[in-house]
């Protein structure tokens, strides 16, 4: 019990002040290290982004605007956002439930379930697409049911949503599990002793402490859903105007040699994700200070 409280207190100082280095040698070692880190991150992340910006604006900003207002770009943009929204609704709910059950309960197969959740990290998205085709394709296991109900999953939007759900599953859970473990059950038990119902406890005690984790998890899920390519291409078939997401549009525009369109769309997608992730990071840091 005491240990848990201690642990809780320690968690509150998430970013401890950097300790001052001692001795001249250490200062230089640190400076070199800082330089290496900055060069590494800048080279890896900033380099490609800057190149993308320069290539997109090669023919002026008007060309970018023209490229982005093409109906195919707009429809694929809409498709991408719509899929991402459905995905965060579903994962926002199930991600929370799954994490809660995984942390608070002990049952047979819990370890196995825990392992299963990481599988989307390991499996190539293209393979995910083909697995879904084996289930929902014309010769798939579910084909007779889907045909009789006249529901299309493969080469249609529902299949693309499923593929994105699969690929983004771990983000919420891996964000929430450590938070839930850190919280412990003291507050929940206290609420229960004071007469709160199970739901009240969850809604008023657990959920508020989880909120930053949920928001961060959802952001990562959203950003990942926006960027998904392989799985949605295989299950969606890349039909122009119907199952084309922004990433698939970029892929096709590169094949079409419409480089300005491809780079502009890429820039838009990248900018949106960056703003999203940085914004949430800023919010989180502000909440913690």
């Amino acid at each position, binding site marked *: 019990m005491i240990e848990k409280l201690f642990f809780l207190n320690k968690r509150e100082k998430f970013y401890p002040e950097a300790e001052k280095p001692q001795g001249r040698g250490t200062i230089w070692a640190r400076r070199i290290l800082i330089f290496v880190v900055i060069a590494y991150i800048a080279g890896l992340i900033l380099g490609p982004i800057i190149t993308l910006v320069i290539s997109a604006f090669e023919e002026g900003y008007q060309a970018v605007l023209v490229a982005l207002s093409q109906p195919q770009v707009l429809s694929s943009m809409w498709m991408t956002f*719509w899929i991402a929204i*459905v995905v965060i*609704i*579903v994962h926002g*709910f199930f991600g929370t*439930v799954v994490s809660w059950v995984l942390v608070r309960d002990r049952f047979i197969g819990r370890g196995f379930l825990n392992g299963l959740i990481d599988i989307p990290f390991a499996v190539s998205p293209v393979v995910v697409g083909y697995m879904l*085709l084996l289930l*929902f*394709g*014309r*010769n*798939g296991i579910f*084909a007779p049911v889907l045909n009789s109900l006249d529901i*299309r999953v*493969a*080469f*249609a*939007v*529902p299949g693309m*949503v499923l593929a994105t759900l699969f690929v983004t599953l771990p983000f919420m859970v891996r964000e929430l599990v450590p938070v839930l473990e850190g919280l412990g059950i003291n507050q929940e038990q206290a609420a*229960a002793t004071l007469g709160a*119902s*199970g*739901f009240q*406890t*969850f809604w008023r005690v657990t959920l508020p402490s989880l909120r930053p984790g949920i928001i961060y998890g959802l952001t990562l899920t959203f950003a990942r859903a926006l960027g998904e390519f392989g799985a949605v291409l295989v299950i969606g*078939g*890349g*039909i*122009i*105007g*119907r199952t084309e997401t922004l990433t698939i549009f970029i892929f*096709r525009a*590169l*094949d*079409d*040699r419409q480089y300005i369109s491809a780079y502009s769309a890429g820039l838009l997608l990248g900018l949106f994700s960056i703003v999203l992730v940085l914004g949430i990071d800023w919010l989180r840091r502000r909440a913690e200070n």
Partner: protein
Amino acid sequence: MNLNYRMKTYKRLFSYISLFLVTVIITSCSGGNTNIDTSTRIVLAAYTTPREAYREIIPLFQQKWEAETGQKIIFEESYLGSGAQSRAVVEGFEADIAALSLEADITRIEKAGLITHDWRSKPFNGMVSTSIVSFAVRTGNPKNIQDWDDLVMPDVNILTPNPKTSGGAMWNILGLYGAAKRGFVENVIPEDEQAAQDFFLSVLRNVSVMDKSARESITNFEKGVGDVAITYENEVLVGQQAGQNYELVIPRSTILIENPIALIDQNVEKHKNRAVVEAFVEFLFSPEAQEIFAKHGLRSPDPIVAERFTNQYPPVEDLFTIEYFGGWDTVMVEFFADNGIYDQTVLRWQGSNQ
């Protein structure tokens, strides 16, 4: 106490799960564009290289059809590697027309029971366009690549797509193999299978990138990868039309690429658009459309149209067809089936790399 607390929570959670499922299902149904009139829509499943031609042919057909019937036709197009596209149709991509790189990819759809008519009864045995396997080299041809032999020189860096997904890649391999077997490669004994296979292996050793489709392969070449891309002649010509600087090299001996097109009966029945789809297929064989294909780098199978473009398409010294290998049925088994000549050669290549 603890158990009670849990039970209650689960009950609540359950009701919320069902609520969410219902909302999600409702949004999925209303969000998808389910209200398309399929009878005035044509879904085209094509391989990657003739897209520039289709971009010109489709509006022309739309105008023509609207003038004749007053109906506006919507086109939905998809461009993937020929093999990948063919598998997608078999897996349930409800395309009305398959325009693919090679006959075997149409046959796969036919064998799945989706094509029930004799598509070969169309003009030119159902082949809507032709091309030849050729090379794209850097401006000025710095590595002096003139023929198949030159591909095996040391430090020649080759691009060719992956035959597991790309039809163009299969044509490339057959062009190379046939040229070797027919005695057009130095130091390779004519009609000697083993010698031809060894030559294929030496070319493979110089291959640096295998892309998913012919188009991806040539655009990577444009970005500066490699010294030579083995590709369709039309890919090089279309690239040059798009302002790319590279040169076309036609080897002395090469294969005639024949690209089939077929209406997919089962999907057309489902979409109730047979009349317009058939009209579109007919239109593709018309001199008008054939000329557009020819403008976009494809050799027309129509002798009259081809006659008009002889300047653009020089004759080949030794042009052979798929029949030289006994047709696609034989080729798919001997070359591209699991453990066929292609797999065996790749195994030897990987073995020698280690």
